[in-house]
């Protein structure tokens, strides 16, 4: 449905988007993720024909956005970052204008009423947009994108400014829309993307760093083995036993969680499965294991790995995990091995099992990543 090939955009000599290629199938909901200034909005603006790419092509259902703009645009509903509302119009008047603008053929009154019902703005239809709250304005913007039942919906942060109840409503609406429409959606709220999207494209510094389902990304990036274990027994001895296990790379003490019960974070060699050995040795000393689980990566971890300073190594891990698709620059086994150490989900000082499930704070962008960002840090 949407074919993006080698999209590149320069602002002056600044590379906003750099060789972005992806495709979206009909009925797919694609999540578009990336830190501020990564090129998300620029890409969306190019997809919708608002700005032109420096090079590369965009095809919407076979129509090139530059060569057949009218046909291509007819198939797109776009909700930009800031909903494009005329504040002096009523909701009804505005949607009627959009209807005319898109040259729709469906019965007008009925269609506008229908769209208003779907985004729940039917009771404010006769109010002037200026007097609406941010949440309602956002929904009017969404209604605008839905006018004409376009086959492709491109939504730039559709749930910004909505209250939690509305967010859930809009999310459900997007899911329903995804059954009939093709949806590209950008968001900063990772749980939202995870809840709604079939597939993720993560973009950083104008380049795509990952393109897969959330589950696959988790699987492919979690090459290391990290466990949290709680053992009842003397702390120092338990620690020594754990450290003595072949293949163990790091043992971190998390503290005494219950009287006499100590918690450790373990990191092991990815090549070895040491779970059985841990069990045997602990039980062999007649200590008791009270809990033992591996830590899963959350979408937050994936996002941070791929977009923070150490992203290069994480990307290599990703590339190495692509079995069929081997490119020349890859350094498979060795590279993979090296990176694993850099992934630190558990804070060595305070980290506990509970901490792992909490989202981490946004990373500071280091000097290397900075030149790729906008000077003012904003998004293009």
């Amino acid at each position, binding site marked *: 449905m949407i074919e993006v090939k080698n999209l590149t955009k320069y602002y002056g000599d600044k590379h906003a988007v750099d060789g972005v290629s992806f495709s979206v199938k009909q009925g797919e909901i694609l999540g578009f993720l990336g830190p501020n200034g990564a090129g998300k909005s620029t890409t969306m603006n190019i997809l919708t024909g608002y700005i032109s790419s420096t090079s590369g092509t965009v095809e919407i259902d076979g129509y090139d956005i530059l060569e057949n703009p009218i046909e291509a*645009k007819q198939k797109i509903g776009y909700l930009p970052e800031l909903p494009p509302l005329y504040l002096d119009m009523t909701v009804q008047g505005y949607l009627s204008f*959009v209807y005319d*603008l898109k040259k729709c053929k469906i019965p007008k009154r009925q269609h506008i009423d229908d769209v208003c019902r779907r985004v729940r703005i039917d009771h404010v239809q006769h109010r002037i947009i200026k007097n609406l709250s941010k949440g309602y304005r956002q929904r009017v913007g969404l209604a605008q994108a839905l006018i004409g039942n376009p086959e492709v919906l491109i939504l730039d942060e559709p749930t910004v400014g909505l209250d939690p109840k509305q967010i859930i409503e809009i999310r459900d609406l997007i899911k329903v829309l995804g059954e009939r429409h093709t949806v590209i959606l950008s968001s900063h709220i990772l749980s939202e993307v995870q809840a709604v999207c079939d597939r993720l494209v993560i973009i950083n510094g104008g380049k795509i760093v990952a393109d897969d389902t959330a589950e696959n990304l988790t699987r492919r990036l979690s090459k290391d083995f990290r466990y949290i274990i709680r053992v009842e027994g003397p702390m120092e001895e338990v620690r020594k036993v754990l450290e003595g296990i072949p293949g163990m790379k790091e043992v971190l003490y998390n503290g005494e969680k219950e009287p006499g019960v100590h918690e450790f974070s373990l990191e092991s060699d990815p090549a070895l499965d040491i779970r059985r050995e841990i069990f045997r040795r602990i039980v062999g000393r007649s200590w008791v294991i009270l809990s033992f689980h591996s830590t899963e990566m959350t979408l937050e971890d994936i996002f941070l790995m791929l977009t923070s300073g150490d992203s290069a190594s994480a990307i290599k891990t990703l590339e190495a995990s692509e079995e069929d698709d081997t490119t020349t620059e890859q350094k498979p086994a060795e590279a993979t091995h090296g990176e694993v150490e850099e992934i630190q989900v558990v804070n060595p000082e305070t980290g506990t099992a509970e901490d792992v499930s909490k989202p981490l704070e946004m990373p500071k962008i280091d000097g290397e990543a900075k030149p790729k960002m906008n000077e003012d840090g904003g998004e293009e």
Partner: protein
Amino acid sequence: MLAIFKREFNSYFTNPMGYVFLAVFYFFSGMYFSMILKYNTTDISYVFSYLFEVLMFIIPLLCMRLMSEEKRAKTDQLLMTSPVSITGLVLGKFLAALAIYALALAVTVVYAIILTFFATPEWAVIVGNIFGSLIMGAAMIAICLLISACTESQIIAAIGGLAAMLLLWMIENAASLLPSSLSWLGNILSQLSFASRYDNFCNGILNVSDVLFYISAIVVFLFFNVRIIEKRRWS
């Protein structure tokens, strides 16, 4: 194009701008017309010749919002991603402003009809005058629209438009200041004068070259407008 025209036209009346424009125009044209009545003449050209100065000030105000506000409020994202060509977009806006202007100008027909109660006015001259005012106003609108497309600020658009109008008004005086060695330049400049060509209409002369001048000004400035919007997408 029709949708944009309709929206712009209506928005002149949901904002005070349309009413203010019409009120100012009606007030001044009415004032000049009452002078005609006072001096017992049927020469309505008098009204039209004074209209130039009025238009010079109010046309920039009529057009200042048209393009700049779209850019500021980012509503151009809607227009540019809709299945509408940029030419359609520019034409829609131009015609909306022109329609308001025509609405204002229509009042002169009423004045002409009032005159018929007292004497038989020269209809050919009146029609020529109205036509001249219409295409000259249209050319002014095209220029102010272009200036509005160059900025995000309505105020800058209005001031820029006013400056352009003043320039067109004074261009002949400026040309006469040039030294005689540059008389060729002076000739070119005075040919570009909006005011002197408009005077021809007011004097009852319908010159094809004047008509062509205004029409080509409209076409050229609207074309620039389309190009400027197009260029913005590529930068």
